[in-house]
């Protein structure tokens, strides 16, 4: 399968890329690692007229200590997140989740910015950033703005990114230690999660998110509320599917997904030190 023809543009800076997507609107797509976009283009699920290659944009692959948080450039590859000493020490959950994306070949090319901007409810990294209570820096023609991860995912493969905006950086709070866990349930190696659960203790509170339990990655607010009022891991996990509208597909019915969410949440909470 070969993608349909497109105009190909190499951007050498974020400003240049933003001016190009401003000019072309929804006919243009940004190409970073291409590991979500190229498969969709091959299947004609995406047919951009203009492809703006941002892989050559410098200064967007960093993983930096910024005091109370870590800043990650949108073009940082999954492999560099997985192996970052800074993240392993200060935000081990994110490094671990990056190591669970796809397979090694995918992790050598795919980028965190690409994964978040793609906003696939079945992806690992959006749920991780959501559970951590991270935020996203996006740049448009009129400057930058910061969007909380909880406000970023707005619909099925839809985000708060405007047509003329580019995701440039991801910020995650420092959350060292062992009070975190990621449960990814799938039947085949390298597959997306049928259901996944990310849990992380941030500033003393346990935050939990769900993968593939709705049209976006979700915070398991019912679980968090139960924990805040003193529920045990088992009691809180019983709430995992409350308020969700789990999708149905060849892998699982909504009822089965709800069951998985409860089981995996209990495991994730217990592994995060919740009794």
């Amino acid at each position: 399968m070969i993608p349909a023809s497109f105009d190909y543009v190499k951007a050498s800076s974020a400003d240049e890329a933003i001016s190009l997507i401003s000019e072309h609107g929804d006919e243009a797509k940004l190409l970073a690692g291409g590991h979500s976009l190229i498969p969709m283009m091959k299947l004609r699920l995406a047919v951009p007229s203009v492809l703006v290659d941002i892989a050559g944009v410098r200064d967007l692959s960093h993983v930096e200590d910024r005091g109370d948080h870590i800043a990650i450039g949108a073009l940082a590859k999954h492999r560099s997140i997985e192996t970052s000493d800074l993240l392993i020490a200060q935000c081990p959950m994110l490094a671990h989740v990056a190591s669970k994306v796809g397979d090694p070949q995918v992790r050598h090319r795919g980028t965190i910015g690409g994964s978040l901007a793609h906003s696939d409810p079945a992806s690992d990294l959006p749920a991780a950033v959501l559970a951590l209570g991270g935020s996203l820096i996006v740049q448009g023609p009129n400057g930058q703005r910061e969007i909380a991860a909880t406000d970023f995912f707005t619909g099925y493969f839809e985000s708060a990114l405007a047509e003329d905006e580019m995701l440039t950086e991801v910020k995650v709070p420092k959350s060292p230690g062992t009070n975190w866990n990621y449960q990814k349930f799938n039947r085949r190696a390298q597959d997306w999660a049928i259901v996944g659960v990310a849990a992380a203790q941030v500033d003393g509170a346990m935050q939990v998110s769900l993968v593939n339990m709705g049209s976006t990655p979700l915070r398991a607010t019912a679980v968090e509320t139960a924990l805040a009022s003193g529920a045990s891991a088992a009691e809180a996990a019983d709430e995992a599917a409350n308020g969700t509208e789990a999708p149905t597909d060849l892998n699982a019915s909504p009822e089965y997904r709800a069951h998985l969410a409860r089981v995996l949440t209990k495991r994730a909470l217990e592994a995060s030190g919740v009794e």
Partner: protein
Amino acid sequence: MPPYCWRKGSTVEISVSVNGTQRTSEVEARTLLVYYLRDELGLTGTNVGCDTSSCGACTVHVNGESVKSCTMLAVQADGENVTTIEGLAPSSDELHPMQESFREHHGLQCGYCTPGMVMAACSLLDENPRPSEADVREGLEGNLCRCTGYHNIVKAVLACSGQDVS
């Protein structure tokens, strides 16, 4: 449109180091790396299996790291170093140690997945020189063998890392 834009249907000049030789070619921007390697350069050792980024038969190295060449555009390899299965052996009458290990431990049956398996295995050992058996199985999860020859493939990779598999 700025000058660094190539219109639909036109070709882009790319310069890629392939197996140590600098190659300059004109390709359409939508050309996938695997088809550039096979059709343009005649390097047919890299196989196309699923064509959907699942099976790993098309695995090559870009700057020393394993990638699936069906999920990368040739233009994305412009200025980069690509190694294919043809570029692995030190000479035409000598195998790379990983190839030798696959032969020694019968790490193949039909052979279709083998070039991708070998390239993925080399990248794995670069990142983890003494992997456990579990590390190898996980490290090769992006490569499918439909002859179900995984056991001997894993053995070949462990042996190539200098570990006893007897």
